[in-house]
């Protein structure tokens, strides 16, 4: 499974959305991505990619797109 597929899978499983929704997905754009959903998502992503993000990155992780930029700082490249 590629990084892109793993990354997408985190959102798909956590929020029960479909692939077509991912690019537009932002914090609080759906009910499930609330503060609890955010913490759960961050935990799943850290576990999936075996990283530990800085607090600023966790609190800045505001969208599916933004998350790709943040993960790149940890050497996790999400292919387009």
């Amino acid at each position: 499974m590629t990084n892109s597929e793993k990354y997408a899978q985190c959102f798909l499983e956590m929020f029960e959305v479909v692939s077509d929704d991912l690019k537009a997905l932002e914090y609080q754009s759906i009910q499930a991505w609330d503060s609890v959903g955010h913490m759960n998502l961050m935990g799943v992503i850290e576990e999936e990619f075996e990283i530990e993000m800085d607090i600023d990155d966790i609190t800045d992780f505001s969208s599916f797109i933004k998350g790709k930029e943040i993960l790149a700082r940890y050497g996790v490249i999400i292919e387009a």
Partner: protein
Amino acid sequence: MKIQHAHWERRNLGLNVYEIVFEHGDTDQFDVDSILPQDAEYICVKVPTAAVPVMKRLHQFGFQFIETQSQMSISHLPPYTSLQSRILKSVVTRASTKDDVAEIYSRIEGGLFTADRVSLDDEFTSEQAASRYKGWIDDTVSSDGSLQSIIFKSELVGFFLIQDLGNGLYASLLAGVFSDVAPLGIGSLINHLGYQHCFDLGAKEVLTAFSSNNWNAAAIHASLPLKLVKQYHVYIKHMR
């Protein structure tokens, strides 16, 4: 059935408010018109879930269902996850200063809370809804309550309100997050911080309640080991 004149709502809402609380086993053969004073302007009725005859009777008297309140208790907290622990290293709580209270009240006046039965009711104004919260905080702080500010990296990002009920019992009454300055995800920790504060003060058990209209509160509490104490359906009627 208990009837109480909610005299504090005269100050908060500018109305004569009465609260009626039913318990299981109470009769459904009541006549609201005859048991309430003529000066009632707003009535709030709490009915235990499954008391369907009472609910039907309230409909007959023109009452409208507005929410379900869940009263819960918690006697221990799960350990923080690694992620939560890392975030909490940047969080401190403190008794709200005068400036904090001014900011908290300003936020409330600006529409911080939108999921309570007054804010959601278009027969009330946002000023009435805000006044009710500020009055609630004032009353609580003056009777063994404590308003605590949540500081993230030196910035006030939220607060919680607790009350010592005696004998190791505390109440976690209210919590709010300023979403424009609070870091993403911290809302999930605010209640946790409130409960922890109560346990640090010696609480054996902490009571709380939230409305079915408040998705965020429900989601947060679903992630904690709470015990359901009581559930009431709430009906209201404007008499003006």
